[in-house]
Structures are given as C-alpha cells and as structure tokens.
C-alpha cells in the first residue's frame, strides 16, 4: 500500500530511475505531491463552490459572522501532521542515508571528479587503487588538467575528460571538487546532484543499477532516443554552462575493466613521447 501510494511518482515525469536509491527519492517526491494535490483539489473545490454560492446576486446580504465551524483548524492540523510525517518519516532518514552516511565497504569504486569551466575531469586511481597527488602548479590545460603528479601513486592514474565509466551494480564513491567556480554535478537519471564548491571536496555515493545499453533500449521511441546518460551541470558557471556536460557509460564489470585496461595502455603509449 505504502509503496503503491508513492507510485504517483510514475506519473510525474521524472526521467527513468537507474540507481539503487532513485526509487526512494521518487516515492518521497510522490508523497509530497499527494499532500499538495489533496490540499489543492480540496480547497479548489471549496473555492469554486463558494464563489458560485455567494455571488452578490445569489446572496445580496453578507453574513457578518461567516464561518463558525472548526473544519479549517482540523485541516491545518492535518497539514502539520502530514508535514511532520514527511519530515521525520521520510526526508530526514533518507537524507542521512543518501548524503551523510558514507559507505565503508572495501569493495567500492572510488573516483575523483574535478569540475572546471566547462568540463568534467574524471580521475581514476588506476591499478594500485590509490590516487596520485595533485599540484596546481602542474596544471596544464592541454596535457594535465588536474595537475596530477605522475610519480608514486600517480603513475598509473587514469584521467578522462568528460568520460565517466561505471560498473553496474557497484557502489561508487565520488570525491567532488572544482578548480575554478561552483558547478553542480548532476545525474538526473540516478537522482544524484551535488554542488562542486572550490576549496572543498564533497563526497557523493550511489549505485547505478542499469547499464547504458539497457537504458538505450528502454528509451527507444522517446524523444531522447539514442542519447544515453550524461553528467549535467546544474549551477550557473559561466557562458558555456548550458553545454557543460560529460558522458556516462554504465557497463558490466568485464566491460569496465576492459575500458580501464585500454586507458592504461593508452597512458603508457603517451608516456613514451610526452613524459
């Protein structure tokens, strides 16, 4: 029952959910909209009736006293109770689960994302599983956008521009930061959004549950056919804010590892001439 009531979220037009928590956010949105619909429709009907019933022709003499019943007070108490439920029952626990209870598993994919005008730099730790250090004095917009030190842990790190690959059904922890101004990392289908504030590193974690290819088949026939997951920027960050986007590929473990290897090889080739 509980779940099926929240289900009006299916009719609200959110993009197809594709992370393990997208359902719970949708239900939450559905529940709030229930409250809104009930209030609006209820009061709306009242308004229409009143306006018809009490127009000056039908009711030439106004009643000085007006309403004496307490129904409105009950309605107000109802609103308060329902809001308390939304707040304490849903929003607060869900927020802590989604934003502030960081995963502690070992088996977790950690990525760094560094936003900049107007691109998303995705930093994978490479085979050793450790991120190399960065230094702003090494930043070079052509060859090293995040200023990565290519020694120690950093030797095998993979940095991709606007290309994020994620294995399906595995929790990912993203350390989000920004090089210049505030951006906002948004994956609408995964119900993920987080501001990237310069000077801060903010964690985001979620589990994608639908591979890109599965998603592509599901959206066939809709207006966005052929366009898969993207990282959108949700915070005004300059003139090209509207086209600051990255591409997300959610794939099976095997595919993901193959991609990582490919990138690692590419890195070695590059090493020979660049470094």
């Amino acid at each position, binding site marked *: 029952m509980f779940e099926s009531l929240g289900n009006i979220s299916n009719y609200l037009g959110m993009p197809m959910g594709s992370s393990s928590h997208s359902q719970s956010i949708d239900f939450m949105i559905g529940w709030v909209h229930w409250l809104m619909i009930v209030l609006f429709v209820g009061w709306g009907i009242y308004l229409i009736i009143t306006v018809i019933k009490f127009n000056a022709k039908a009711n030439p003499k106004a009643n000085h006293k007006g309403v004496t019943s307490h129904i409105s007070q009950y309605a107000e108490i109802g609103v308060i109770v329902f809001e308390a439920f939304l707040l304490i029952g849903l929003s607060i626990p869900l927020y802590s689960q989604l*934003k502030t209870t*960081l995963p502690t598993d070992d088996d977790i994919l950690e990525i760094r994302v560094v936003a900049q005008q107007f691109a998303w730099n995705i930093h994978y730790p490479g085979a050793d599983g450790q991120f190399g250090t960065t230094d702003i004095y090494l930043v070079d917009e052509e060859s090293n956008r995040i200023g990565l030190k290519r020694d120690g842990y950093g030797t095998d790190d993979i940095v991709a521009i606007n290309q994020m690959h994620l294995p399906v059904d595995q929790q990912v922890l993203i350390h989000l930061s920004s090089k210049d101004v505030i951006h906002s990392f948004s994956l609408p289908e995964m119900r993920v959004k987080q501001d990237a504030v310069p000077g*801060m590193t*903010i*964690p985001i974690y979620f589990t994608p549950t639908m591979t890109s290819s599965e998603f592509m088949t599901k959206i066939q026939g809709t207006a966005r056919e052929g366009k898969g997951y993207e990282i959108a920027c949700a915070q005004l960050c300059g003139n090209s804010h509207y086209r600051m986007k990255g591409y997300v590929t959610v794939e099976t473990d095997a595919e993901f590892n193959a991609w990582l290897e490919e990138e690692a090889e590419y890195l070695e080739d590059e090493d020979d001439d660049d470094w």
Partner: protein
Amino acid sequence: MSGKDFTEHILHYRNIFIYLLIGTALTVGASYMDFNVSNSIAGAVFVGLTIATVKGYLVAANFMHLNSEKKLIHWILLLTVFFLGLLLLIPLLWDINLISNY
C-alpha cells in the same frame, strides 16, 4: 530636572569613563598573558571578548541610556540581538557540520 540631579549624572558619567579606561587596560593586559589553554588562544579570546562585552554594556546602558529606555526599544533590540546571534553562530556550526569534513 534639578541641579542636583545634573551633578549626579555628571559624576555617574565620569565613573563610567573610568571603568571603561580600566576595561581597556585590562583587555590590553590580558592579550599579553598566557591563559594556558593547550596551545590555543581560545582563553585569550574568551577573556578579551568578555571584557569587550562588559565595556559594550557600559556604553549602551549608560551613555545610550538603554537601562532607562522604553519597552519598545528594548523589544526591537532583543529581536536584533537574536538574529545577530544566528548570523554569527550558524555559519560557524555549519562549517563544523559539513559532509566534506569526513
């Protein structure tokens, strides 16, 4: 008001002046002292601000004759001070409460 009242007032203001001077001396003195709060100046800040608050109170209550001011003014200032507290405190608490402090 009679002449006597005036002399009283004037004496009163002179006393406040002296208290304020003492307060100033204390603040300056305190800033050279070490309050032994393990390697931090929290103690000095506390002492310094407490003295400042006392001095501020002396000025507001006497020179600005707040202690005999009308109720309405007191209410307005109370409201202001409440919001002031929010403005000073919440950004601080917020900074402690960031999820990036993991």
